[in-house]
């Protein structure tokens, strides 16, 4: 590794501190929180995460100075446990191999770390006031901050991981933390149920993910990213000598065998990994946990939606690009799942009234965009969208939390309105976030979303048009929410003393809204700082920086352009460049204007629409009855099976046991009457026995 700057070098060498600092914070709060720190429990968490932010910035700078060859290197922190060489080990050159705790330091990691830690820091700072009421810490204050810091630890280790084992570890830790935090108000049955649901639905996806990781090990006999990716690339291009060198194989014959094996399995592996991504990143059909996850405190939602959890799936697919691009059908699956989820979730969001739930569906929809981008070979755009989305979605959730705080826990947009005057800062920041989400021109969401739509139109025109439709819907439902909550007649639920939130909350809102507004410019300014370069080609600094990581995507795309009739040959390049920008800007504004017409100018219109198509409204409001379908198709049969097993256990097995135990019990019952508790009776018995023995001995002897 080579950079001249000592500080940057130090950050590169000590990347392990990034997850460890929040962990330390979590441990401190966990150990001393309830006795010593109490109301000051936020400090260790904030300091821990702030340390991680500083190191991430240094790391980002350091990575920027590295040579591109260094990106592929895996930094081993320590050797964890030996693999215990398998019998059919094809790699016979190394005597003993180890599962290691290793990091991969490249632009993707750096960007993810920066996004995750910065957003998390602001969320944690915000929580300091959010988790207090009238300046008294809420019950479980220290527990909350311990889990938040633990969440950051989990996500940073997931992102830093240099092999699939560590990735899986972070993956599961993130799931655990989400469970703990969604169920933060565990006294509430709905919160406990939501936490359980999140955990179980995630487990379904993780099951596939786990099998995928195992299959990787069985195929490659290593879990190291570098080796796996290099081997896949070599195997797919048929370069046996390269494969032999990467995997350290003995001869060409075994290299050919392994190559065939990899070619055979790579699509399955990618699909299994994608299963995990579907669960974690809440895509169809495993998205159901995310809307329910709103039961946790608002900062938790912000953390889950923006930084630490749902982005894991997108990150993983981008990271494993080499595996995913190996089979173009897998990429189509990714794109279709993403595109359909985006539209599907956006339509549900149209008919919801719970502020946070609308945001949850918008997250699902935006994640759909990211997967669409990945599936359309625009991984850099997907990560770009992830990065801008982190800012504005965290902002929106925190602002919604601020509204909720002011409204005394009420979040139904029908029960309040016209909050513009009462909560001015919240209002302004919320509007900035909404504009960014809606893709309003020149705000961050606009740049990233357009790139994805552009890529989708080139790869899969149908999905591209669906994405455009989704963009209109997004703008509409976002501003429906804004207009309902902040415009119109001032309306406050009875008995609520509405007040603007405390300073810690407002400052993090303001900082995040700056991010939401301007984060997108990282993707449009040229690398050398020459200002606006253009929307799509060439990409800005952000893409330039990420480019070396995503060579699998670009290489696959370049290869496909030459295939006649291949999936890449649709659509003309020239038709799109700036037109699309105007089109999508127009669509975003159209959505906002329609929302204005419906909810401010002519408030009777929505009711009329609803009455005109009552069935459509009901289906949307009930979220396509997906929860009910799952209930009928999965939960009921499982419960039936459970009841059957319980009955078997209760009546048959327990019956057998009853019979077996009844025999000694009956014998005991017979003998029990002899035990009277009268000491002297025992004495008499002893003497009688003694006399009998003496008589026997005397007569026999």
């Amino acid at each position, binding site marked *: 590794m080579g950079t001249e700057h000592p500080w940057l070098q130090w950050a590169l060498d000590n990347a392990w501190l990034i997850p460890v600092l929040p962990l330390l914070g979590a441990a401190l709060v966990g150990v001393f929180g309830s006795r010593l720190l109490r109301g000051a429990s936020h400090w260790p968490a904030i300091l821990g995460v702030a340390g991680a932010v500083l190191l991430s910035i240094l790391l980002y700078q350091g990575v920027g100075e590295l040579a591109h060859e260094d990106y592929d290197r895996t930094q081993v922190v320590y050797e964890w446990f030996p693999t215990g060489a398998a019998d059919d080990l094809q790699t016979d050159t190394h005597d003993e191999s180890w599962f290691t705790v290793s990091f991969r330091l490249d632009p993707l990691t750096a960007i993810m770390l920066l996004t995750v830690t910065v957003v998390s820091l602001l969320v944690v700072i915000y929580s300091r006031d959010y988790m207090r009421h009238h300046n008294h810490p809420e019950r479980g204050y220290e527990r909350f901050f311990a889990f938040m810091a633990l969440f950051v630890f989990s996500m940073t280790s997931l992102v830093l991981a240099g092999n699939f084992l560590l990735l899986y570890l972070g993956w599961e830790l993130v799931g655990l933390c989400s469970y703990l935090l969604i169920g933060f108000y565990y006294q509430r049955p709905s919160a406990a149920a939501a936490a359980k649901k999140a955990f179980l639905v995630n487990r379904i996806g993780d099951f596939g993910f786990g099998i995928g990781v195992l299959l990787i090990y069985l195929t490659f006999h290593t879990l190291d990213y570098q080796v796996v990716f290099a081997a896949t690339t070599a195997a797919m291009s048929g370069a046996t000598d390269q494969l032999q060198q990467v995997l350290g194989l003995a001869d060409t014959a075994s290299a050919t065998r392994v190559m065939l094996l990899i070619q055979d399995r790579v699509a399955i592996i990618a699909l299994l990994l994608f299963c995990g991504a579907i669960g974690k990143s809440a895509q169809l059909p495993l998205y159901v946990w995310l809307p329910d996850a709103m039961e946790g405190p608002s900062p938790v939602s912000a953390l889950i939606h923006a930084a630490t959890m749902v982005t894991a799936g997108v990150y993983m697919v981008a990271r494993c690009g080499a595996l995913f691009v190996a089979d173009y059908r897998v990429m189509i699956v990714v794109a279709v799942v993403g595109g359909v989820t985006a539209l599907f979730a956006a339509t549900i969001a149209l008919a919801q009234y719970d502020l946070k739930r609308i945001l949850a569906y918008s997250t699902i929809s935006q994640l759909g965009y990211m997967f669409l981008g990945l599936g359309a070979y625009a991984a850099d755009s997907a990560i770009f969208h992830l990065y801008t989305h982190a800012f504005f979605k965290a902002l929106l959730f925190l602002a919604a939390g601020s509204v909720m705080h002011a409204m005394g826990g009420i979040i139904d947009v029908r029960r309040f309105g016209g909050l513009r005057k009462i909560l001015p800062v919240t209002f302004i920041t919320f509007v900035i976030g909404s504009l960014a989400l809606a893709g309003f021109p020149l705000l961050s969401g606009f740049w990233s979303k357009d790139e994805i739509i552009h890529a989708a139109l080139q790869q899969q025109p149908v999905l591209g048009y669906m994405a455009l439709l989704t963009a209109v819907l997004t703008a509409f439902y976002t501003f429906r929410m804004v207009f309902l909550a902040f415009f119109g007649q001032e309306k406050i639920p009875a008995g609520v003393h509405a007040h603007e939130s405390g300073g810690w909350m407002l400052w993090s809102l303001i900082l995040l809204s700056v991010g939401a507004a301007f984060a997108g410019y990282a993707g449009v300014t040229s690398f050398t700082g020459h200002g606006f370069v253009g929307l799509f080609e060439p990409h800005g600094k952000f893409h330039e920086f990420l480019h070396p990581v995503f060579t699998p995507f670009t290489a696959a795309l370049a290869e496909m352009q030459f295939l006649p009739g291949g999936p890449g040959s649709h659509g003309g390049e020239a038709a799109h460049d700036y037109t699309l920008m105007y089109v999508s800007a127009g669509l975003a504004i159209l959505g906002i204007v329609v929302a204005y017409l419906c909810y401010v100018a002519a408030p009777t219109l929505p009711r009329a629409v609803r009455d005109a198509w009552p069935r459509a409204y009901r289906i949307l409001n009930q979220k396509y009855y997906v929860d009910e379908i799952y209930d009928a198709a999965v939960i009921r049969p499982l419960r039936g099976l459970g009841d059957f097993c319980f009955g078997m256990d209760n009546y048959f097995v327990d019956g057998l046991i009853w019979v077996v135990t009844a025999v000694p019990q009956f014998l005991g019952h017979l003998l*029990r*009457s*002899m*035990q*009277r*508790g*009268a*000491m*002297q009776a025992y*004495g*008499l018995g002893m*003497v009688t026995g003694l006399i009998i023995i003496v008589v026997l001995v005397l007569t026999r002897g």
Partner: protein
Amino acid sequence: MTHYLIVGALLFGLGLVGFLSRRNLIIVFLSTELMFQGAVVNFVAFGRLHENLQGQSFALFLLAIAAVEASLALALVVLLFRRKGTLDVEVWRAMQG
């Protein structure tokens, strides 16, 4: 020699009868002590018969043990008395099956 053994047997027999028939906890306890001493007399007698010191030393040990055991047993009796306010053995039948 026989006389010694007769004294020992008498002591043991008296103790046994007392143990089985009396109801007062302290008397019951004293009866067990009586049985004890019957055994001790026999030890000494046999020690004399075999003309060695084993019987006598064993008797000394037994006395010491009897003293320790007596203190323990009396302490228990005191506790039991505090609980129920009576010394009747019949009261303590909690172990009845």
